[in-house]
């Protein structure tokens, strides 16, 4: 125990590590805020020049970037309705209406505070319950991941805009587009029409930048000349009462985030969307109706995606399985530094585990300071006239898209998606479900087919599995509950209507 504490204190006693964490958080916030420049990309870029450093310094920088980057993605979602990363899509649903009301400062302040709280929940789970959660997450079968993806698809009801059928149409188009490219299990080409650029599929990040960024810019140009709302920046830090008011929701959503983050292959994006949906279903008296700037709709996704950070480290450090894309990069770095992530890592090099816990804790404190300091300059962005900010946003979208795989073709896709998104918006088809379909389509397809193959292509054994396996049964019942809870009968019974 005493030795663990010593390991934990290493970064606190090293000014170099301390500085690198703060630099990482700062860089992460700003990189994460740019659509397309994801935290994954920032981590992979930075890791390439930490190969010659010692491992401690590299880990310090990466932990800082991870925490800052996940937070940064929410800033542009709130200010400009353009999420910096998929994990921030849900935040923008309530954040942007708040910015339109002149409450961007308060929204970002609350987002920062609850984010820091959730980071600590994730870190606590990592340090206390890592082996238990990791072993449990390994029990998930392809059928369970399929059910999880179905739960995700049901979110269309929450983010689908006013018309659910149009939301489902957009979601199904997203799923169809996600099928483009080479089928990962059989190598068969689907919807590629002999075009080599389509073989790799359509990147959902490219689609997201187009559907949110460019289409938002085009929509704004319909109202060119309209003044941007003046932002109230008098009270940024939420009061203690406000924090306590949102504490139960923060705890619930953070724990959901930890759990989803710990599942290999899922991450902050799925966690944030599920948490938003969960908040929408369970909060009886939101600060405002959901969709018009409810603060609960910021708290839930933000705490979930920050909780998912600690969660993602759990399977990585205990089993050597990455919880998400960033931890996959970190595993690569550990290998390069001569370590073998897996069950023996915690036994042979316990100092690494406690140092990561420590780096994440320092990064969370740095996030509180740097996040709150950045609120005013960030909030001022929204007051810049649209005629000036929107051309710059388009150029940023171009940089972000090109950086994904250094391909000009991706820029064409992004602009194409922007134009499609603009037309869809005009007719009330929300673009969120389309991105959701693009994200969850491969997860649905791959896991359904694996589960079906496991049942030897027989319908009955496939369906039986939903009721005989405890995890599958729990997820099936959760899906039934999600559907029932959308009915007006249930909502009236619970007093939500």
């Amino acid at each position, binding site marked *: 125990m005493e030795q663990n504490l010593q390991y934990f204190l290493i970064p606190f006693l090293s000014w170099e590590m301390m500085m690198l964490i703060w630099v990482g958080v700062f860089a992460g916030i700003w*990189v994460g805020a740019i659509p397309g*420049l994801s935290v994954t990309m920032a981590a992979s870029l930075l890791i390439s020049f930490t190969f010659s450093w010692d491992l401690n310094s590299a880990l310090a920088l990466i932990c800082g970037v991870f925490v800052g980057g996940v937070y940064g993605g929410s800033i542009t979602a709130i200010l400009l*309705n353009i999420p910096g990363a998929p994990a921030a899509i849900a935040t923008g*649903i309530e*954040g*942007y*209406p708040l910015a*339109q009301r002149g409450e961007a400062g308060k929204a970002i302040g609350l987002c920062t505070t609850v984010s820091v709280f959730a980071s600590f929940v994730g870190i606590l789970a990592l340090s206390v319950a890592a082996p238990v959660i990791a072993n449990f997450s390994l029990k998930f079968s392809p059928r369970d991941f399929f059910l999880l993806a179905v739960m995700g698809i049901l979110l269309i009801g929450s*983010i689908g*805009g*006013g018309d659910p*059928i149009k939301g*489902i*149409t957009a979601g*199904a188009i997203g*799923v*169809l587009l996600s*099928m483009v490219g080479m*089928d990962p*299990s059989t190598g068969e080409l*689907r*919807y590629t029409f002999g075009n080599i650029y389509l073989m790799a599929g359509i990147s959902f990040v490219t689609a997201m930048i187009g559907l949110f960024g*460019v289409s938002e810019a*085009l929509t704004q140009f319909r*109202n*060119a000349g*309209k*003044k941007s709302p003046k932002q109230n920046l008098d009270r940024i830090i939420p009061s203690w009462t406000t924090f306590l008011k949102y504490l139960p929701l923060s705890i619930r959503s953070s724990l959901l985030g930890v759990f989803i983050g710990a599942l290999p292959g899922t991450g902050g994006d799925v966690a944030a969307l599920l948490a938003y949906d969960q908040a929408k279903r369970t909060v009886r008296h939101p600060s405002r*109706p959901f*969709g*018009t*700037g409810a603060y609960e709709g910021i708290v839930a996704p933000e705490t979930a995606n920050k909780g998912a950070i600690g969660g993602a480290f759990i399977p990585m450090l205990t089993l050597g399985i990455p919880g998400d894309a960033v931890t996959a990069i970190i595993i690569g770095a550990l290998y390069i530094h001569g370590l073998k992530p897996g069950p023996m890592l915690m036994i042979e090099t316990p100092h690494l585990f406690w140092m990561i816990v420590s780096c994440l804790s320092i990064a969370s404190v740095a996030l509180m300071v740097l996040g709150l300091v950045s609120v005013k300059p960030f909030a001022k962005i929204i007051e810049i006239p649209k*005629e*000036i900010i929107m*051309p710059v946003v*388009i*150029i*940023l979208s*171009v*940089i972000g898209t*090109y950086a994904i795989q250094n391909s*000009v073709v991706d*820029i064409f896709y992004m602009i194409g998606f922007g134009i499609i998104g603009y037309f869809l*918006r*005009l*007719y*009330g088809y*929300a*673009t969120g479900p389309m991105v959701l*379909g693009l994200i969850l*389509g491969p997860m*649905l*397809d791959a896991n*359904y*087919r*694996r589960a*079906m193959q496991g049942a030897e*292509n*027989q*319908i009955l054994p496939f369906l039986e599995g939903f009721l005989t396996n405890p995890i599958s049964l729990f997820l099936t019942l959760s899906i039934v509950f999600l559907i029932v809870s959308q009915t007006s009968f249930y909502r009236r019974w619970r007093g939500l209507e």
Partner: protein
Amino acid sequence: MVKNMGLQAEGAGGEPSGTVKELSKYVPEARRKPGELGIAAITFLLGALGYYFALDMTSGEYSSPSVFPKLASIVIMACSAFNFIKAVWREKPEASLTLTGYLLPMDVVVVLVLLVAYCFILPRLHFVASSYAFMVIGMVYLQRGKNIVRALIISAVSLAVLVAVFRYLFLVILP
């Protein structure tokens, strides 16, 4: 955000600025928008094509690669048919609203033309020159020809910052 899209779209049709409409309950509009039938028909066609091309994929088993493409296509066709019928039931669009006027106001047309031109010149002039031209022309047009010097300076400074940060600090390769 997503719900607000409806607001954004409707805002162009006369929504007062600066207000946030109550969107928690969906209230269908009495009149359909110009081109609403067309968009439902296009999405139906997309679903039909999706299904048609999925017929070429391996099928025959419940775990075949064609299962989800076919399923998604059927959902698109069914929903599009529903959207089409629902739009038919609603009153015709206001006579004063034309399809092109609704879809493509002049500002949007100009920005779209600029975007397409930007795509064409980007591989030839590369990032700095083409982006500078895009920003300056965009800003000058959207400010109705005023503040040309300001647009030149803002574009130059923004571009310098973008290049410095992304190219030299974060080592991102620019187009």
